[in-house]
Each structure stands twice: as structure tokens, then as C-alpha cells.
């Protein structure tokens, strides 16, 4: 048992940190670090820089651009990226549809799609959830019917993240309504968003921003060859894809970055005779979250090391990463909100350009702008990808044997 990074791992960490600091534009990182959202162009720019250096899809199979890194290296790469406030490569491209095509696609599909996915030449979104289905994915109702060499798709998807910017969507659709189990008879189909019959409606979230969408399919016709994997076995693709979500689910680096920012700003937030940071009560709340985060980081490292040593047999501790990671992320936004105090009240649309001189803002505290929207927005992290209640059900069954 040796719980420190090896010298090679430390060197790799420094290499990653340097790369992100020197190559991803500072204005993009500052914007993300201040709790604002990057726009589409910035996201694409950042991913293309990474891709140029071979850092967009290091976890892919080597033949499609992967780097053959160890789980620990991948972990370090991801944590440093988040810790430096870089936009992560678009997960719908690099962690979802890309790996599915690499694993299930035909050679022609791989050649056609994978380079464009890695370079975000196409922006992808996910067509899984449906209205009224919530966490119950297998109950989906969107249908795809084969007519000659085409699929005709009808139905509705929702919670489609960043669908308003997407060029393509990967859809789970029911292709055999007669199947015995609800998970059977589903297929995984690629749809160009420009196809007639596709309609997108952005949904405003409580942070005031537009991040998810409803997507309607009204007699949408796409080539039969847009099917990935075997017809009616789309559930295999979905399970494979959802299994990939685990690696950076705890978002430890992102929480570190937010806590670092709170520590920095709180020293200059006026309170009484001095600064907010003079309050032991506030400092202890910050430190308490940092301690939980340190424990979670060690948990994550245990999981990563087990992945390296035992491959597919995951460490049971991995099951807590989502719950604890989301609780900590939310706790950091609560601290920022408390820090902003009365000045969190003023609302600025986060899509609006922020004036250079922050003190020109009405409330006089530019950093306070994002406190409430971030807090509001981050309520989602204990809901999406299987709510924390669902996570507990899964752990109860899979780990504790109930």
C-alpha cells in the first residue's frame, strides 16, 4: 500500500496543468471560473485546441485517437482540466456517442463520424429522456418504424441538454413494440437535426439560462444506416454509454476551483469591521466542505486504482461518487451564495456580456452576480443522471444486497 502519486504521475499532473494553463485561452477559463457559462464558440474553440494536441478524446481506443492512458492518468487529466476551469470536451460527443460508435458502429460509421465528433465539427446531443418518464428510461414511447431504407421517427424527447446548439442527436427509439420486456425492442439511431420534422424548444431554467430542450420528432425520415449496433438492441448501447458516465461524476476538480475562488474573494467581502473571511463560522463551513472533498478525492482515487488493478470489477465505493460529489458541488454553491449576501439579489442574464469594469454593475459586486444562478442551477446535479434517491435505491440493491 502506497498512497502517494508516483513521480511519473506527479510529472504527468504538472504536464497537464501546464498544458491547460498555457493553451486554453484565459478569458474562457476566467469566464467559467466566475460561474458564467461559456458560449458555443468558446466551447468549440477549447475542444479543438485540446484535439489538436491529442487531448480531446484520450480515453477512446487508440486507433480512433485515444492515448492509452491509465485510469489514474485519465483521472489526473480530467481533474486538472476542471481545476483550471476549462470547458470539458462536450460529453455528448466524447463520452457518449463517440464511444458508442467506436464500440458498436460499422467501420464506415467510425470513419464518417468519429473524427468529426472528436473535433466537435458536429455538436451532438442526447435523445433519451421523455416527458413523464423521469428516471424510468425503459418506458420510452418515441417510435421508429422502418419503411424501406428509412426510419420514420415520431415522438418527443425532453431534458435534451444544449440541444439548441446541436447538429446531431442520438435517439433511443422503440423499434419493436411487441418485445416482451420494456428494455427490448429499442434501437439507437443517429439523426441530423436539420432533418425536416425535428423541432427544438429551449426550456428556461431557474437560473434564467437555457440549457435543456424539448425535441419533437414528427415523421422524421433518416437513412436506415443511421442505426448504430443491432436493431432492437439499442439498450446495450445505452447501458454501455451510461456506464461511461462514472469516471468524472464526482467533479472534484470543479469543486476545488470553486472553493479556491470563495477563499480568495471572501477576504475582500466587507463585513462589520473587517471582511467576511474574519468570521470563524464561515471559514469553518468552507473547511468542512474541503474535508469532505478531500475524503471524496481519496475515495475517487481508490476507485481509479481499483479500475487499474481489477478492470471491470468496480470498487463498491464508486457508487457513492455521484451522491457525495453532487452534495459537495451544491455545498460550494451554497457557500458562494452566503458570501454574496444581500448582493446576490440583483439579477443579470448570464447570456449577457458582462461589462469590463465590474464595479459598474448595479450591486457593486460583480462576482456576486453568479452566486444565485449557480446555486439555482446546481440543484440539477442531484437530479440528473438518476436522482440521488435513485442512486440510493441502486446502492441498496447492488451493493448492500437488499
Amino acid at each position, binding site marked *: 500500500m502506497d498512497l502517494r502519486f508516483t513521480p511519473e504521475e506527479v510529472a504527468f499532473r504538472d504536464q497537464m496543468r501546464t498544458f491547460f494553463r498555457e493553451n486554453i485561452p484565459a478569458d474562457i477559463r476566467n469566464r467559467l471560473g466566475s460561474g458564467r457559462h461559456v458560449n458555443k464558440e468558446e466551447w468549440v474553440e477549447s475542444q479543438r485546441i485540446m484535439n489538436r494536441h491529442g487531448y480531446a478524446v484520450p480515453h477512446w481506443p487508440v486507433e480512433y485517437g485515444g492515448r492509452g492512458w491509465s485510469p489514474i492518468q485519465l483521472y489526473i487529466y480530467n481533474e486538472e482540466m476542471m481545476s483550471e476551469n476549462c470547458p470539458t470536451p462536450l460529453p455528448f460527443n466524447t463520452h457518449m456517442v463517440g464511444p458508442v460508435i467506436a464500440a458498436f458502429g460499422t467501420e464506415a460509421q467510425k470513419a464518417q463520424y468519429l473524427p468529426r465528433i472528436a473535433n466537435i465539427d458536429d455538436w451532438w446531443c442526447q435523445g433519451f429522456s421523455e416527458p413523464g418518464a423521469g428516471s424510468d428510461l425503459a418506458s420510452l414511447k418515441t417510435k421508429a418504424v422502418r419503411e424501406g431504407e428509412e426510419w420514420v421517427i415520431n415522438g418527443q424527447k425532453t431534458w435534451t441538454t444544449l440541444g439548441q446548439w446541436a447538429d446531431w442527436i442520438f435517439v433511443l427509439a422503440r423499434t419493436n413494440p411487441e418485445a416482451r420486456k420494456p428494455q427490448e425492442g429499442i434501437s439507437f439511431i443517429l439523426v441530423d437535426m436539420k432533418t425536416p420534422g425535428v423541432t427544438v424548444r429551449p426550456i428556461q*431554467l431557474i437560473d434564467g439560462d437555457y440549457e435543456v430542450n424539448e425535441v419533437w420528432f414528427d415523421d422524421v425520415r433518416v437513412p436506415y444506416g443511421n442505426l448504430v449496433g443491432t436493431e432492437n438492441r439499442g439498450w446495450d448501447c445505452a447501458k454501455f454509454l451510461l456506464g461511461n458516465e462514472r469516471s468524472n461524476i464526482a467533479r472534484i476538480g470543479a469543486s476545488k476551483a470553486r472553493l479556491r475562488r470563495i477563499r480568495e474573494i471572501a477576504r475582500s467581502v466587507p463585513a462589520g469591521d473587517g471582511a467576511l473571511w474574519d468570521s470563524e463560522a464561515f471559514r469553518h463551513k468552507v473547511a468542512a466542505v474541503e474535508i469532505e472533498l478531500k475524503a471524496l478525492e481519496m475515495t475517487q482515487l481508490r476507485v481509479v486504482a481499483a479500475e487499474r488493478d481489477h478492470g471491470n470489477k468496480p470498487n463498491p465505493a464508486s457508487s457513492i461518487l455521484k451522491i457525495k460529489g453532487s452534495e459537495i458541488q451544491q455545498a460550494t454553491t451554497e457557500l458562494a451564495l452566503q458570501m454574496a449576501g444581500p448582493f446576490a439579489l440583483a439579477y443579470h442574464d448570464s447570456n449577457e456580456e458582462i461589462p469590463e469594469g465590474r464595479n459598474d454593475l448595479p450591486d457593486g459586486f460583480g462576482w456576486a452576480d453568479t452566486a444565485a444562478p449557480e446555486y439555482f442551477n446546481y440543484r440539477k446535479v442531484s*437530479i440528473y443522471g438518476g436522482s440521488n434517491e435513485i442512486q440510493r435505491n441502486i446502492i441498496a440493491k447492488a451493493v448492500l444486497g437488499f
Partner: protein
Amino acid sequence: MDFEYSDEQRMLKDSIDRLIGPAYDDLGKRKATQAQGPGFSEELWSKYAELGLTALPFSEEDGGFGGGPVETMVVMEAIGRGLALEPYLASIVIAGNLLRLGGTAGQREACIPKIADGSLRVAFAHVERQARYDLFDVGTHAKKTDHGYTIEGDKSVVLSGDSAQKLIVSARTSSASRRDHHGITLFLVDADAPGISRRDFPTQDGQRGAAISFAGVDVPESAIVGTLDHGGELIAHVIDIAIAAVCSEAVGAMTSLHALTLDYLKTRKQFGVPIGSFQVLQHKAVDMFTALEQARSMTYFAAMMATSDDPRERRRALSAAKVQINNSAKFVGETAVQLHGGIGVTMEYRAGHYFKRLTMIQSLFGDTDHHMRIVDHAGGMLETV
């Protein structure tokens, strides 16, 4: 001891519920109302006036109804339940009580009839950039001149300050220290007086506010509200009344949000059954109920103590109430969103709007740490009434 409304109070409650209850049921219309004019419904405001709500706190001699904290509670609960946008808190509860308690006969005569008929709205320009929650941290100063005073300074986050026609502004008239509770004076000024500039903004919870600068604003001696240098006591008293009012608003919002959540749990189906059949979600709903009832109880306490003659007792009680409300509002708001899932984080459903208002109430007039400190310094709650 009696926790029931009187017949008059019950009638008041019924008419308010009829007025405010359904006014913002349609979120689309609510959004449209926010986007135009003063950000609330002027039509509805005149109905508030018709019902007498805008005259509620004023004495009968001044043309008011002599309503106290319980009557205010009735109104604010309805506003909380109804997600109402009208500036009742800022204009009636805060500015109204400042005038009631501190206004000269001339000021009251000039303002109260217009406030009562809905044509005049007043905002309290007080919080400053450096003050955070310290009520007596006032850097704006008013310098004595031959004709009166000249006010100089910047006010931040003035609730409903964007469209008020008059402002009551706090300024330092003496004392060396910026945080001295003595030496603060309140002045009543026209919002469009020379030297005043306002920058409006919407607030996170869909209401409106303003940052207001006072650059050499001349006011006569007669503009003083309350007593020269003794504005601090007046501010503290009225903010305590305001705390009781937002406690009530929060209870209203939590009541509706809890009911909405119960309804959702009982009707929304997943895996073939109502999600409310899951014991974990039922128990969360029970814990929301507990938090709500504790908040309701403490709001009664707040209403009872808001009129206390003993400022120290009053302060401690209102701070304790605010701590309870903050804790309950955070738990009920966050849990409601969690139980709703995705729909809870959208602007297209009422739960998120309640959650946002409940969140903002937690920092209004002091967060939990701030009020814990006050309760602690006052020696805790054991020996209170």
C-alpha cells in the same frame, strides 16, 4: 392565548385570498407583467388600495386602518402563496411603517392619503455596498447647510427602488464612526430630485430593485423622518417589523410549495406507480411539513414580538424567528425541487419560482449566521417570553 383569527381578520384574509390568490396563477402572464412597466400589475395595486391593504398599517387618524403585525401577516402570507409581484413589503411594510412611526404630521398628511389610494409608492434607500447586514453601517452622509442638508452617497439593492416616486434615505449626520448606531438620520426625498440617479435591475426572484446614487442632493430640514441622529432606532424597529412580514411571506410560499409537492407526488407516475408511494419521498414530505409548521409557529412568535416595547427583546425574538424561517425555507425549497426532479428547475412551473423567492428571503435583512450572532449576544432564548 389565542391562535385564531378574529372575525375581522378572517374577513380580511378571505378578501385578500380572493384578490391575490389567483392573480399570478398563469406564469406566462406573470412573466409578461414582470417585463413591462414597473414589473408588477398597477391594476392589481389599485385593487390592493380598494381593499384598504395599502392603508393597513397607518393609524385611523391618518386615514389608515390601524392594522398590526397580525394583519400584515395575513397580507404577506397571501403574497407568499400567490407569488405576487406588488411592492407591498417595500412600500407599505417598510416605508409605510417608517412614516407611521417617524413621519411628521406634515409628511403623514402629504403622503399617507396617496399611499393609501395607491398613487404613491415609497422605497427605503438604506443598504450600502460595505454594510452587508449591519443596519447601522451607513457611509452616506448628510451635511448641514443653511437651508437644510446635502446628501452624498451610494445606496445598493434598494427593494422596489426602481419605480418608487419617493425615497426615504438613511444618512449619517454625526458620529465619527461609520458603524455607530447613533448619528443616523432618515430623510424623505422625491425620487427625481436633482442629484439622484437610479440604475434599475430585476431581482433573482422576479421583482425589481435599484442602485441609487445621491450626489449633492439638497433637502430641507422638514424632510427629516423621525429624530435627528436617532434614525438607528427607527430603522431597527421597522426592519424587525419587516422581518416578521417576510417570515409570513415565507410561510405562505412554503405552504403552497408543500401543497404543490404533495400534489405532484400523488399524481406523477414512474415505474407504473405514483412516486408518492415511495416511502422515502413520503418521509421527505413529512420533514417538509415539520419544517413548515415550525416556521409557522415561529412566525406567530415574530408577529407577537414585533410590537414589543423592549427593543432588545424584540430584536432577539425577530432574529430567532429569522433563523428558523431561513432554515425551514432552505429545507422546504431545496427538498421541493429535489422531489419534483427536472420540472422543479424550470421556469415553466411554479415550484422553481417559490424556491427562488424562498432562497432570496434567506438573505433579506440578515442571513442565518448574522441572526445567530444576535441571538447569542442577547443570551439565547431560554428566558424569553
